[in-house]
């Protein structure tokens, strides 16, 4: 049984982080260079952590599976980054950002972590501006803000529709500077395939070079994972194709607990699937719902008709019908689930039947085509590029898609997992968003963790490790881990079955989407827990991975990732089945109010579930960390 000590400092909420920073141990500057830290992943969290630690004097090795750190999927975030600067003089404060985030997370995040996030949010903006991130400006030269969902203040900083790109390039430039100065050893095309635990502490990783296939062992005094979320379990998502859970999953199998894996966020307005060849779903900004009306045909037989041929009386503006007070602007999860119900009833539009209309004809009547173009022109262009349809002439087709995972490896207040020496940052950990993440908060968390949390907390751990005490990479644990990695590759290559890896990924995605997607039921999850082990067996018996292990072999890379996704999917279903309540992104149909809102059970489930690996084929152990709300009252989330 893992010990889950959250190490939350005592004292008033606003003083916890300050107090903690003065309490934790420091490493003296001359000793820092004797410690080596491995950072895996170079998105917002990884790049910022690697450069910050290197600037402090630690020896840093950074591993990325991409060809360059600049490719990490943080780059695709569009909307913005929140910070409690209160530049708009609209009453924002650290407390309000904290409160909005806690409430947005449906009271399933830790108060202390979230408050710290809100505190350092202001430093993040300072840091990014100093690095040259070209945030949007007012004519006077000062920073501009926009408003975002889940908040009543304007606190979102943005760089056109490419905020994530600009923030990542900022962090990447800091990383590049430290690499150029010889402070960070950067390894690209390098995928982490195992965590090495020596004497109960994380002391190294096993890396496969994706070009040469070479397996190398790397030891360190501490290991930092910043490898992102696991939404690609669903196959179709807004994630990059390469986004994967292998690093965190292999760490889980070495003893790190996986917390709340069932918390996944589904975004209502994505471009629907157009065929079974589809590889990717593209997000359309939520802001479209300000002027668009969502509907589906009333009659099943109309679903393939051209929308213009469906009479007004035959259209069901279902959000306006079911949620008359909020209408098209009801919360993300509610809108997503309603659209799914329409499609489940057979009224979904488009060839696949998985889509509803987002109609701008009223807005065009009201504002004129140019008025609509001014507000949403770039989004209409993207839509046209992908679908070859003009949303000025006919309604958009939209459907919800997986977009973010709130769950991840369990970490304490120091962002250290239950395996000492293993730190987990960004989307890869579970810590700050509870059961649902607010828009523009993912970027904030990644940079907060990398620039302003880990530089303090890694020192607290290292101060307890003797300088020079890190084990040699020739040790038995390293050899065993490297051998198991090689054996796994060999197994995939030797199976020589009939099915390409993509076949299993698609099949997995369908099971997960059907049973562990927007709406979950006991029966559905139980059936998924029957299907997934069978899929795993089928994969092991019939996967076809051509080529060899010692060249670039994308099928082999994908095989390892999909094998992990299948196992992780099983854990997600298990977690979702056990959590007999609805909260945020986790919606169990059995637990809802009459209006379709989530019905939480704070008494029984006001806690973090942290799953502990017990060995292959064994049921994992569900550990519990109670969430003690000292400052905020858990209440029913209400946006009405």
């Amino acid at each position, binding site marked *: 049984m893992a010990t889950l000590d959250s190490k939350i400092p005592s004292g008033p909420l606003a003083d916890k982080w300050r107090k903690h920073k003065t309490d934790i141990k420091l490493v003296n500057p001359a000793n820092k260079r004797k410690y080596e830290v491995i950072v895996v992943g170079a998105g917002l969290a990884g790049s910022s952590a690697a450069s910050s630690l290197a600037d402090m004097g630690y020896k840093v090795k950074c591993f990325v599976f991409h060809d360059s750190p600049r490719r990490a999927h943080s780059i695709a975030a569009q909307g913005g980054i929140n910070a409690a600067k209160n530049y708009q003089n609209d009453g924002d404060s650290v407390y309000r950002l904290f409160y909005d985030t806690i409430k947005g997370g449906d009271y399933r995040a830790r108060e202390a972590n979230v408050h710290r996030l809100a505190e350092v949010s202001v430093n993040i903006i300072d840091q990014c501006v100093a690095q040259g991130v070209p945030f949007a400006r007012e004519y006077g030269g000062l920073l501009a803000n926009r408003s975002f969902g889940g908040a009543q203040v304007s606190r979102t900083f943005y760089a056109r529709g490419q905020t994530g790109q600009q923030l990542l390039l900022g962090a990447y430039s800091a990383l590049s500077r430290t690499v150029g100065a010889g402070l960070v050893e950067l390894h690209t095309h390098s995928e982490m395939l195992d965590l090495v635990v020596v004497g109960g502490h994380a002391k190294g990783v096993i890396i496969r070079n994706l070009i040469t296939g070479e397996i190398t062992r790397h030891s360190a005094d501490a290991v930092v994972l910043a490898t992102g979320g696991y939404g690609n379990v669903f196959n179709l998502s807004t994630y990059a194709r390469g986004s994967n859970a292998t690093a965190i999953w292999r760490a889980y199998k070495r003893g790190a607990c996986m917390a709340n894996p069932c918390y996944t966020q589904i975004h209502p307005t994505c471009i629907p699937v157009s065929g079974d060849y589809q590889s990717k779903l593209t997000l359309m900004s939520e802001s479209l719902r300000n002027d668009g009306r969502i509907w589906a045909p009333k009659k099943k037989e109309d679903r393939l008709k051209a929308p213009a041929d469906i009479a007004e009386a035959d259209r069901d503006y279902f959000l306006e019908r079911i949620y008359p007070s909020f209408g098209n602007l009801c919360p993300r999860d509610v809108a997503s689930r309603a659209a799914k119900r329409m499609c489940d009833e057979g009224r979904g539009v488009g060839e696949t039947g998985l889509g509803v209309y987002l109609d701008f004809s009223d807005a065009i009547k009201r504002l004129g085509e140019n008025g609509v173009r001014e507000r949403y022109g770039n989004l209409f262009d993207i839509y046209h590029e992908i679908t*070859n349809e003009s949303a000025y002439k006919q309604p958009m087709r939209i459907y919800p898609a997986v977009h973010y995972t709130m769950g991840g490896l369990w970490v304490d207040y120091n962002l250290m997992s239950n395996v000492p020496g293993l730190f987990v940052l960004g989307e890869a950990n579970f810590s700050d968003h509870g059961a649902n993440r607010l828009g523009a908060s993912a970027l904030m968390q990644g940079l907060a963790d990398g620039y302003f949390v880990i530089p303090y907390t890694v020192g607290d751990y290292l101060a307890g490790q003797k300088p020079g005490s890190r084990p040699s990479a020739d040790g038995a644990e390293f050899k065993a881990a490297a051998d198991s990695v090689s054996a796994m590759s060999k197994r995939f290559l030797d199976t020589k079955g009939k099915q390409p890896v993509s076949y299993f990924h698609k099949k997995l995605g369908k099971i997960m989407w059907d049973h562990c997607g927007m709406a979950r039921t006991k029966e559905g999850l139980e059936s998924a827990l029957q299907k997934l082990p069978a899929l795993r067996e089928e994969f092991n018996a019939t996967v076809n991975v051509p080529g060899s292990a010692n060249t670039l072999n994308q099928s082999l890379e994908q095989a390892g990732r999909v094998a992990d996704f299948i196992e992780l999917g099983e854990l997600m279903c298990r977690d979702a089945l056990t959590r007999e309540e609805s909260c945020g992104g986790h919606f169990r149909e059995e637990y809802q109010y009459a209006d379709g809102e989530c019905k939480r059970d704070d008494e029984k489930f006001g806690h973090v579930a942290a799953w502990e690996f017990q060995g292959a084929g064994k049921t994992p152990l569900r550990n519990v960390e109670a969430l003690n709300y000292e400052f905020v009252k858990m209440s029913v989330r209400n946006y009405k």
Partner: protein
Amino acid sequence: MVAASSTKSISVTLRVWRQSGPKELGQFKDYSAKDLNPNMSFLEMLDVVNDELTARGEEPIAFAHDCREGICGTCSLTINGKPHGPGKGIATCQTYMRSFHDGDIIVVEPFRAAAFPLIKDLVVDRTSFDKIMQAGGFITARAGSAPEANGLPVPKGDADRAMDAAQCIGCGACVAACKNASAMLFVSAKVGHLGLLPQGQAERDRRVLAMVNTMDEEGFGNCTNQYECSAACPKTISHDFIARLNRDYLSASLRSAFRPEAASTGGGGA
């Protein structure tokens, strides 16, 4: 706007560059891709072809890709000689099969540049871009040392132009399209982005000299002002930034040639 033919499937012949490794000999091989939905993206079409190859026991075509929404800059192949395919201002992943006709022969090649050595099939190594960035593509600002963000106003016009340049996705299409495999558009975008901002002034001369020097060392060609780069750029970054880079380089060279040097660069140790 709604293509009536959008659901009519097409078949094409792919003439794909296959090369099993950097030292091996490469050659074009033909593959037929049948009954494709025109709404399929070009990369999804390659996925389908690859699954068929796998089923036939052949090695799938290696190609670089990741986000598939035009922002990560990973996808890197040329379609009929043009990086990222026929469209303007889009990446390969945003190219759809409806851009092609039934019966077309489509030639698919890797980006070709000595500074982007080939890894396999259509995948090339663009580490040289990272090296240029490491030489100077940054503003030195350690975490914790930043002043208040609104302490330094930036004229909106400058911020907007900096953003125009900063949109670069680092894909290398400029190098691939350039008749001389020059990286000037890439370098100029970064130099322009940082040089337009007040924060970037302290390191301005150092940055441009170091980045151009590394660009030369990495074996890129020289700009002949033909502007194929900006025409191929998926973010349509203007070659005006190249003019700006040239100007910056000239003035930095002159300044650094005549500026007196400090007696010591040390920080005053105890």
